[in-house]
């Protein structure tokens, strides 16, 4: 009896219009939902979902999503917020940002779609750890056609580069990512929106990945202000932003993983010979120092333990190599080393790896930044 009455009361409450206190969030969800699409493409094999999410970034139907396996098809389809089903095509895939730009490709598509202005969003003050956020995506394909997407609440847990700081090496995007404390990155969530509590776009929800720092799954989004460094044939470099990608609608980098791995191979020489890298966590102990080398000039000695480079911890020889692969010749680096029971600081200026030098025998090549899904 009590239960029945309770259910009855609960039903009454549910029948009521939304409480005023909830109204802003409900409005926010409606507003964001109208700017997202459900995406359908390749997949369905090897447990990869054939569905995903996209963010509309222009009134004419450009859509931003993660550059993943879903796009390996000639028949991409989107479901708009009102339930309309439309064809879409791939315009540009940018591996450095791990993002792809699609265009809704349908004569019946309207050209006044509600959209997120990426340029504007990128200029807003960035969040910080502790900023309350909302995640929107079609994870697990719970919504179809005009059903609203899943909304999650959480906060920005951290803002840090995925690879170096978070230990995610299988994602090509190397810039700072928005790490979220909610479980936002589920199957089908890639390409969803991470917004502020007021519905301003903060980032594009990323892939499902685990990290090597903690051996746990990590939830992240690529921030709207993301950018990467582009070096042209003359060796001049400049930064390309996500906004530029959306405006110019073209990719800047080859998406061939082999090319990209070569680009990332270490190109500097320090003269430090480390102990043999026998186990995964071999500490970066100096075994020997090549005479007349950056290391000898910096005063490094055998048995020094390299603790950190430019403030970033070096937990293993593998991590040391990863860091070296991102350094340029003649750029000084500040090392913190353990010598006996003291921490000392030394500055070492690596030189260009001589073209004739054989590859270091004990060193494995750095992990290629391959995209396993492709």
């Amino acid at each position: 009896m009590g239960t029945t009455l309770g259910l009855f009361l609960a039903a009454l409450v549910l029948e009521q219009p939304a409480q005023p206190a909830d109204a802003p969030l409900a409005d926010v969800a409606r507003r964001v939902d109208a700017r997202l699409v459900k995406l359908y493409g390749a997949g369905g094999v090897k447990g990869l979902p054939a569905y995903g999410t996209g963010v509309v970034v222009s009134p004419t139907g450009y859509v931003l999503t993660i550059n993943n396996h879903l796009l390996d098809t000639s028949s991409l389809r989107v479901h708009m917020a009102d339930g309309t089903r439309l064809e879409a095509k791939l315009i540009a895939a940018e591996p450095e940002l791990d993002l792809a730009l699609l265009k809704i490709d349908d004569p019946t598509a309207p050209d006044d779609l509600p959209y997120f202005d990426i340029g504007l969003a990128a200029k807003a003050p960035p969040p910080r750890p502790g900023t309350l956020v909302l995640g929107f995506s079609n994870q697990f394909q719970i919504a179809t056609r005009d059903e609203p997407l899943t909304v999650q609440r959480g906060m920005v847990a951290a803002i840090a580069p995925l690879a170096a700081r978070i230990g995610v090496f299988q994602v090509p995007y190397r810039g700072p990512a928005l790490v979220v404390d909610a479980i936002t990155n589920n199957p089908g969530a890639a390409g969803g929106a991470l917004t502020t509590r007021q519905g301003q776009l903060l980032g594009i929800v990323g892939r499902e990945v685990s990290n090597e720092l903690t051996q746990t799954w990590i939830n992240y989004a690529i921030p709207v202000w993301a950018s990467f460094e582009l070096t042209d044939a003359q060796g001049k470099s400049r930064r390309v932003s996500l906004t530029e990608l959306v405006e110019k609608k073209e990719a800047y980098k080859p998406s061939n993983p082999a090319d990209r791995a070569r680009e990332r191979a270490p190109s500097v020489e320090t003269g430090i010979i480390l102990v043999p890298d026998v186990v995964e966590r071999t500490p970066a102990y100096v075994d020997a120092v090549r005479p007349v080398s950056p290391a000898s000039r910096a005063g490094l000695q055998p048995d020094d333990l390299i603790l950190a480079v430019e403030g970033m911890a070096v937990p293993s020889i593998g991590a040391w190599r990863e860091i070296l692969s991102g350094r340029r010749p003649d750029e000084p680096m500040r090392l913190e080393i353990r010598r006996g029971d003291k921490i000392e600081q030394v500055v070492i200026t690596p030189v260009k790896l001589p073209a004739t030098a054989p590859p270091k025998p004990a060193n494995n090549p750095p992990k290629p930044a391959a995209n396993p899904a492709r």
Partner: protein
Amino acid sequence: MLPTLIFCHTLLSLGQDPASLRQAAILQAVDRVAPGVVGIETSGGTDVVGQPAAGGRPAPGVRRGTGPTTGLVVAADGWIISSAFNLANQPASVVVTVGNRRFLAKIIATDSSRMLTLLKIEATGLKVPDAVPRDEIRVGMAALALGRTLAATSDAPPSVSEGIVSALGRIGGKAIQTDAKVSPVNYGGPLVSLDGRVMGVLVPASPESEGATAGFEWYDSGIGFAVPLEDLRRVLPTLQKGVSLARGVLGVTLSPGDPFRATPKLATVRSGSAADKGGLRVGDIVTAVDGKPVTTQGQFQRQLGPRYQGEKIKLSYLRDGKEAESPLVELLAPETGKALAMLGITPLRDTTGQGMVIRSVIEGGPAHKAGLKAGDRLVGLLREQGPPIPAPIADRAALAGLIESADAGQVLKLLVRRAGTDEKPKDEKPKDEKPKDEKPKDEKPKDEKPKDEKPKDEKPKGPETVSVTLVARPPDLLAKPREPGSAKEGTPPPATEAGDKDPAEKPRGFEPGLAQKTIPSGDGKYWMLVPANYRADIAHGVLIWLHPANRSKEPELRALLEAWAEAAAARHLILLAPVCPVETGWTPSDADMLREMITQVAGSLTVDRRRVVAHGVDQGAQMALHMGLVAKDWLPGVAVLNAGWNGAVRDRVAGKPVSFFLVVADRAPSRLAVQDLFNRVYQRHYPAISRINQGSASSYLDAAQIAELAAWIDSLDAL
């Protein structure tokens, strides 16, 4: 209290919407605590903590990440507390980062009761966050979990996750539970209230098991734990002296029962333990701990759970219906240095009636020296202290408990009915005999005392008193070779039980020979070989073959079981070969399936649970070791080939004996690891035997070795 008031005031005066107020409060709270949240960077150490990865699969162990972890400043002059998880892989070098400064750190002490580690760095003027007094912590309060792993640089704000306090007094009264995301990302960091004070230190924890990594599997699930900072501050001075802390042990086990209903009635009291010194005895019912009433086993354990070694407690208890109180007694550390005691007999496993009949006497052992003989029935024990009231020995399990809680060197005055005088089967047996379709009859307590409680004096010959001085159990006890031709149980048994069950009785649902079975819950399959000479009146040992990863095909399992067939018949062993549900190998959760399998087999066949052995190589060996060293709940024997153990070897648990039989090939790469494991189990006084197998790591046991292993299984229940 003051900060809270000011904070509330700010809230009200701003008059903004609740979401932005909350946002502001969160950021303020993070900023307030952040200086006291430091990073911990380690170099080297093992890849896997807790338990090892096996066969390339991160099975029961936890792969330790390479990232920085988190610590919390607890005193301004360089004292940092962290989760023991973060240092469990024994790193070669530990550095603490405070802002952008690095300090070499020393590991000072570990609190293994709450899985915390104290570090010291040479620094002064560190910021110590305020603590929330324990009684201010309420379920439902907002809670932030802070960590250093993900922070972009060591001077960036810590990472943060938001939730609420979900429960208090978890993990035996030791932890606060929260639904904020707790994981290696923030283990060792603080759980912070919305006003920027610290409630506790985040740790992985599990109500089921202890250890630095227990509970890791719940990371980010909404089930997270923190050790209250106030509890930690209480023991900080001890830890700062370099004294590691352990759980305080009372030294009792409780009579089996529903922990939420059954009264805490003592089943064993270990000699020399706190309980023993407090005058507690088997059969006492504890009614209060330090004046706090306890009515159930659960309440009793929650009172004891948070106590440390060295703490003094007072117990109130009921004995023979009368209230009594112990003096203050000091809790001891978990048992480490105590060798198992031995009486030097093997028990007749099918004894009926009260007491336990000796099947054989170990040559030169204490029983042998005291003149005990095969066929003698041990019926009681005279207490050393107090009035000489004989305590009855109900059965084999009772005697086992008694020996296990005794010390080597201790003198037991046993009441013995000699082999010849035990002849009153006509009298006793019909009363005791159970219906034929009962459970295996050597299973556990027969509560009904023989009805002949009537004066023993009436008998022409009462039980004799025999004094036996226990010795330390040699680790490598092996049963004697079987005498050929003896039909059952080796040595001449007294006539008590022959024929009380039809020897020809067929096992129900199980035929001798090889068959494939499915456990009742339907998920697990296993192969079973019942020896051709199976008889329901003989208690059988069980050998569980845990196949290596990807080696679950029928021909391979069949070949292995058949190699054992002869030894199984000679030693009365039932062979089981469960099939791992996933090809890639065993995981700790498969222990449930194995337990269900044993229960099913024991339901139909006469199984002696004191002689169940898990046996394997490679990944199967890791699973066997996991069950013996970590799960420790029902498995009395582990026999593995070429297997080492990266995880901790923890103390023996009273009442749950585990013995080890370690074989290593002389050319196996794991030879040192096996030697190390043997040393460690030996140090912890687990009975253990090691054997060297001529040849390479890929060769299995030959027939003679199988026979020896079978003999070892036969000796597992020696007392």
